[in-house]
């Protein structure tokens, strides 16, 4: 007897139809994200560098009344931290907020691969109410795609502009509208092993020449001059490229290049990159380029703490690791600012936003989510407690901190940095980090391309020409993050 069998053609037809249906469903929101109504822009509330290339932004504000009907949890996805940091965040942020807002508590979930998970969820029209990204360059992609809510009205309502450092606030504005708040601000500094310095009778350098002399002295003492490595984080190289561009070419020239008034191929920048390459070729970074590519973050922090290295150019996030490593080694540490590397250049600090926080345009409870955002910035004492509990590695919100805001239990060296940062940047001596103010593809080439320079397969001139070409393309496409205005 002949049974009716599922033929291959039928099987493929049904499978194909199902797949097409599925894809159509999946594509619908991403292909055409539905913008919501535009809010009334509060005049003068957000500033942006007028000369920077404008970004194309879909307007996505939601009337605050939408929030009133859904007293649900505020879904908050956060990148994962170590146990102590997560506990600190729960206790000092989530629990305090939930106690004050029992009707709209925060439901915080830690994600191992936040960025990838978030992208998938948000463009499917879902995802958390609160959107966290690794910086202005990343959030700009979400903004351009229409997935981020315009926060300008909330900014006025809660007075965020006055509470945040102006450059940090401006970094979240696009075309005069606020889309993100800075959750963690960062900068780059030079950590050093004080025990080694004392033993060798070395002094922290204040000029490029002194720094070079110190590196040579370290080499002679059979110590790595600068502890570094990019084995587990290839982007580590940009922690050097940016400060070298800044401290060699000067903040003003750097700014002009960012807004298109100078070229990255100009002599100041060529000199900066040649100097950095020269330092690598001489083995100042972990003894050799090969070592640099093979060492991890744990390795190079350990080398500094154990006295195998004298100094380490790194970000403020290393405040979370350095004190503990030195406590284990029993040696002492301190820091100094990256010295100017060229004559006529002022010492400055690079500005960086390592994490941004925004509201999902699809959030059904934007008012409640905005309250949660305000909870980050509305109390300096609480913000300091959280930052302190994160060892100043994460959640360092750029508020107007004064020396009195630092509790007694905060490491004096860390407190000294933040006070100096506010003082130096307050007088206009600030530069721009690549991971905050450069468009994503150019930023990626900054460190990928420099590998080729170190390997000798690309010249410095070719490297900078490629940067310029990529930068121009992204600037034209409106992918340049907002640059705080500078008077030059």
């Amino acid at each position, binding site marked *: 007897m002949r049974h009716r069998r599922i033929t291959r053609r039928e099987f493929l037809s049904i499978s194909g139809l199902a*797949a097409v249906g599925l*894809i159509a469903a999946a594509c619908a929101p*991403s292909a055409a994200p539905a913008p919501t109504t535009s809010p009334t822009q509060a005049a003068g509330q957000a500033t942006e560098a007028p000369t920077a290339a404008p970004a194309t932004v879909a307007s996505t504000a939601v009337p605050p009344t939408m929030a009133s009907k859904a007293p649900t949890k505020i879904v908050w996805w956060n990148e994962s931290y170590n146990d102590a940091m997560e506990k600190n965040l729960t206790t000092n942020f989530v629990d305090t907020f939930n106690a004050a807002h029992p009707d709209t508590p925060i439901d915080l979930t830690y994600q191992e691969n936040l960025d990838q998970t978030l992208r998938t969820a948000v463009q499917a029209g879902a995802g958390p109410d609160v959107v966290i990204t690794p910086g202005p360059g990343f959030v700009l*992609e979400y903004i*351009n795609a229409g997935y981020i809510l315009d926060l300008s009205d909330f900014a006025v309502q809660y007075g965020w502009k006055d509470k945040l450092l102006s450059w940090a606030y401006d970094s979240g504005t696009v075309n005069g509208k606020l889309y993100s708040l800075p959750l963690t601000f960062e900068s780059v500094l030079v950590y050093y092993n004080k025990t080694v310095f004392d033993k060798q009778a070395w002094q922290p350098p204040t000029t490029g020449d002194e720094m070079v002399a110190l590196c040579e002295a370290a080499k002679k003492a059979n110590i790595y001059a600068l502890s570094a490595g990019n084995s587990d984080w290839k982007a580590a190289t940009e922690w050097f490229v940016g400060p070298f561009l800044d401290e060699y070419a000067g903040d003003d020239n750097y700014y002009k290049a960012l807004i298109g008034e100078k070229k990255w191929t100009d002599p100041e920048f060529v000199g900066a990159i040649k100097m950095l390459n020269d330092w690598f070729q001489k083995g100042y970074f972990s003894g050799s380029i090969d070592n640099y590519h093979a060492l991890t973050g744990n390795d190079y922090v350990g*080398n500094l703490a154990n006295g195998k290295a004298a100094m380490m150019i790194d970000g403020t996030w290393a405040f979370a690791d350095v004190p503990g490593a030195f406590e284990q080694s029993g040696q002492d540490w301190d820091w100094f600012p990256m010295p100017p590397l060229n004559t006529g250049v002022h010492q400055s600090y690079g500005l960086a936003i390592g994490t941004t926080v925004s509201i999902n345009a699809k959030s059904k409870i934007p008012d409640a989510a905005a309250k949660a955002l305000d909870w980050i910035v509305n109390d300096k004492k609480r913000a300091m407690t959280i930052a302190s509990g994160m060892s100043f590695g994460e959640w360092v919100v750029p508020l107007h901190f004064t020396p009195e805001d630092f509790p007694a239990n905060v490491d004096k060296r860390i407190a000294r940095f933040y006070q100096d940062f506010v003082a130096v940047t307050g007088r206009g001596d600030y530069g721009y980090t690549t991971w905050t103010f450069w468009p994503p593809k150019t930023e990626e080439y900054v460190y990928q391309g420099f590998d080729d320079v*170190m390997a000798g397969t690309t010249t410095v001139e070719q490297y900078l020409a490629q940067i310029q070409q990529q930068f121009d393309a992204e600037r034209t496409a409106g992918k340049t993050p907002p640059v705080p205005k500078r008077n030059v």
Partner: protein
Amino acid sequence: MATDLEVGKTIMQGQVLVQAAATAQVRQPKRPHVWRKAVLPWLFVAPLLIANIVVVLGPSVGSAFFAFTDWSGLGSFKWVGLANFQRMVGDRVFHVAFANNVKWTLLFLIVPIGMGLFGSAIIAPIKRGAMFYRVAYFVPHVIASVVNAEIWRQILHPTMGIGPWLASRGLKFMDVAFFGNVHTVFYAVAFVDNWQWWGFLLVLYLAAMQAVDPELYEAARLEGANRWQEWRNVTLPGILPNLVFTILITIMWSFKVFDYIYLLTGGGPAHASEVLATQVFNEAFYQFEAGYAAAIGLTMSLISALVVVVFIVLRRKGWEI
């Protein structure tokens, strides 16, 4: 009184009726339930089918579609035709990554398969402790790649690993940062992956050898064959389907290799260990070039498909693989 003929007719009619009734009974629909014939099979395959449509077919078709767009990975996109494929032609990183994939494939077609064949030939005759050898060689395969990678990162560490240790004992040439040097990094990562992979092949070949008829070996010995001739003329033909299968999966997996490279070097330094999969990851997640990444991914899939087609053609030509 009925004649014999009539009686015969009656009997025949009766037989016909009985036959007809019997036939009718046979044909009587114990009416096949439609759902049993047409629906039930679908219910059985539905879970796997749905899972495959959702996690394999759907994204695959989606990726193939996005390969022809300028999609950033977020928001809207434009149809760009073959632009992404044209871009590959001039993309130096793609060239390096593709060449590395080819190199990786050749390396893995030779080294682990050769080691597996050699090892299995050596171990097969061992009767005592056979299980120990099988387990010992198989263990690396069951350890998670992230753990293996960390173990070898420490063993080949530039300052605390075996290299500097040997260098301090006179072997100066071993003072190498294996994962940091552009000339050694590719082979260092391949070595680690091979360490995990070849034991699996060895056990696979050993299992295949057990299926070879022992009488063939006996006959070969009676004919005066030595060990090499035994292996060449009995073992190899006996395990040929397994060997060809491992060659097939080696080629396909070599073009999508990702984990060890991502874990140990991220494709660096200076793209020295870059492969197509790491480039796809970078393009999609760091450069917001999901369309271009999809085009590279589609190219990888086409290469794998080509291998499968060759495999099918060979089978149709009568190859026992």
